[in-house]
């Protein structure tokens, strides 16, 4: 068993243990309605996290995802208020705009060799401002529009007991994993993150890969914006603000490394589920709101400690086994 798959098992185990603890603590936890709400929460963050995983595997970071959500939501609202275009026509346009913003990030990062953090931080600021500028106003004040177009609200609805966004998340996660593991693009993403110079020398166009991954997070963020605004029946300029931290946390808990070259989509999905589980469960424990953030922080820290501790333990065991085998082989050759 490899270290990665062992680590995956640990996370699954922790996830289940937490789930069992929560279902014992509150009978409201293990109900169909609650599980579906939990998955809906997870999916909104998860869709962004899929794109983000690609960026992080290349060793980059994208702080602008939350701002893209707010901006894209405001574009949707503008289409809904000022145009009579059908939903199926403008939603792809909005998603394409998300991709375009990602390309702008990629442009500044590759052309001017600027740090990813700074570029996307700047984009985040610009988009937050733009979202306010294009927001629908009445008498000079931002007015958050109450969306009532049934075609648009479909994105926030359910098919049977399952939310549409959850289905979208599953599809996007599958596409992401296939793209990452089965295509040349995916291989090049890993290569770029593991060692950019080596990748470049072996003929990988790392600039193009970076363009690609930032465009992907942009697209994913815009998709999340559509689902989020449909669910909330409004677009708000500040929507999505701060969600980048949740996304980063989920991706890192899922085993993707900050330094790049390591990670995959199933890990991210687990990370997303884990965070959603904690946030959903904490509400049912009857804790004081002052204590809740402390408990959330505590559980995350505990998990990461167990995870990292067990990973190093596994690595030690593997290297010990290797040493023993070497010693064995050495003994055989001597004899």
């Amino acid at each position, binding site marked *: 068993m490899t270290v990665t798959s062992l680590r995956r098992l640990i996370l699954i185990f922790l996830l289940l243990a937490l789930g069992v603890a929560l279902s014992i603590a509150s009978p409201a936890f293990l109900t169909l309605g609650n599980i579906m709400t939990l998955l809906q929460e997870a999916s909104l963050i998860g869709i962004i996290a899929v794109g983000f995983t690609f960026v992080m595997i290349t060793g980059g970071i994208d702080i602008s995802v939350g701002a893209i959500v707010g901006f894209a939501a405001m574009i949707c609202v503008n289409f809904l208020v000022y145009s009579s275009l059908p939903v199926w026509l403008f939603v792809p346009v909005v998603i394409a705009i998300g991709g375009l913003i990602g390309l702008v990030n990629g442009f500044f990062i590759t052309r001017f060799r600027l740090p990813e953090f700074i570029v996307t931080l700047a984009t985040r600021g610009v988009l937050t401002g733009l979202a306010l500028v294009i927001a629908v106003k009445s008498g000079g004040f931002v007015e958050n529009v109450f969306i009532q177009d049934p075609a648009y609200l479909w994105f926030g609805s359910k098919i049977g007991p399952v939310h549409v966004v959850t289905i979208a998340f599953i599809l996007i996660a599958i596409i992401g994993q296939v793209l990452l593991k089965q295509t040349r693009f995916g291989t090049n993403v890993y290569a770029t993150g593991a060692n950019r110079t080596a990748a470049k020398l072996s003929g990988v166009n790392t600039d193009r890969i970076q363009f690609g991954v930032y465009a992907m997070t942009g697209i994913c963020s815009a998709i999340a914006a559509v689902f989020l605004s449909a669910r909330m*029946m409004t677009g708000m300029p500040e929507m999505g603000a701060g969600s980048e931290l949740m996304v980063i946390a989920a991706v890192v808990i899922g085993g993707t490394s900050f330094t790049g070259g390591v990670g995959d989509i199933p890990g991210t999905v687990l990370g997303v589920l884990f965070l959603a589980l904690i946030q959903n469960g904490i509400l049912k424990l009857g*804790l004081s709101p002052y204590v809740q953030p402390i408990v959330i922080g505590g559980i995350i820290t505990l998990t990461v400690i167990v995870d990292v501790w067990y990973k190093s333990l596994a690595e030690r065991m593997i290297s010990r086994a290797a040493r023993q085998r070497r010693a064995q082989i050495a003994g055989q050759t001597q004899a």
Partner: protein
Amino acid sequence: MLKAKWLVVLVCLVIAASAVTGCASSGEPRTSASGDTAASSAPAADSAPAAPAEGGVYKVAYVPTMIGQPVTNAWMTGLERVFSQFDNVEFQAFDPQMKAETQVSMVEDLINQGYNAIVLQPVDAAALSAAVQEAENKGIAVVTLNTPVKAKHTAVVQMADVEAGYAVGEAMCKQLNNTGNVAIIQSPPGATLGVNREKGFRDALAKTCPDVKVVGAQNGEWNKDKAITIMNSFLQSNSDLDGVFAVNDTMAEGAIVAAESAGRLQDIKIWGANGQSSALALIEQGKMAGTAYNNSYDQGATAANLIMYLLSSKMGPGKGPETGVIKITPFAATQENVGEIQQADRW
């Protein structure tokens, strides 16, 4: 070896889990919760008033925009004062930390948990509408504080917002002898309460003293730090500034800090709104010109009484064609009349 390590991990987890569940059982009796599963897993019972959980216990949730601010704390105290008189009410507060997304998911979670009533201060009027509608359809009465959501719901208990701004505007006109320059420290765009206070204020200026000019308006995001920054820029760009209206007291306090360190506090009439005890103290010291005082204990208690009426009469969410409105009228508290506010009413 491997097995021993697994055992350690297991023990750690069991301890962690028991700690979590231990906290839970101290917070809410297990028995009350057992009936809720039935309520939440039977969404078919649409629009029927939510039955109390087993043993006749009602669960009431309080979801303000943010826990730990003077106003939201005062409401919580007001709510608790009423609910603590009833043995059959469980009261629980939640903190969405000023984020509409979090607040929506909290309300949906409360529906799943089978709460009987929700006291909500929406972060945004439009964003919370769908969730509130769903709660009311499932028989959960929702009473909003200050900002009503756009969908019809049981009731809103609000500080009169436009009126509060208007009262401040009129009082400011008088203090400035109908002439001068004023600036506004705004709330975040889309925050109905702050926006309406500002509207009322501008209205009053336009009607009562058109010679008073508004020379600047910036978003202080409800908080003190940001208000200090904004006030500094107002001070730098306006050598002649006579009045400031910050749409809440916390921001007014920030403006006072900035004006004081620039040595211009005595020239500038700084007004806030809400009437929290720290602001009243500043008014008494003569540092703050005034505030639109509102008794927030009373506001919380009013919402709680309304909910107890609905729950005890088994009426469920309001059945009327429109959202009920209860207004708590503020008054402009200045140095002359601030003494009239009783110590017990200061929050």
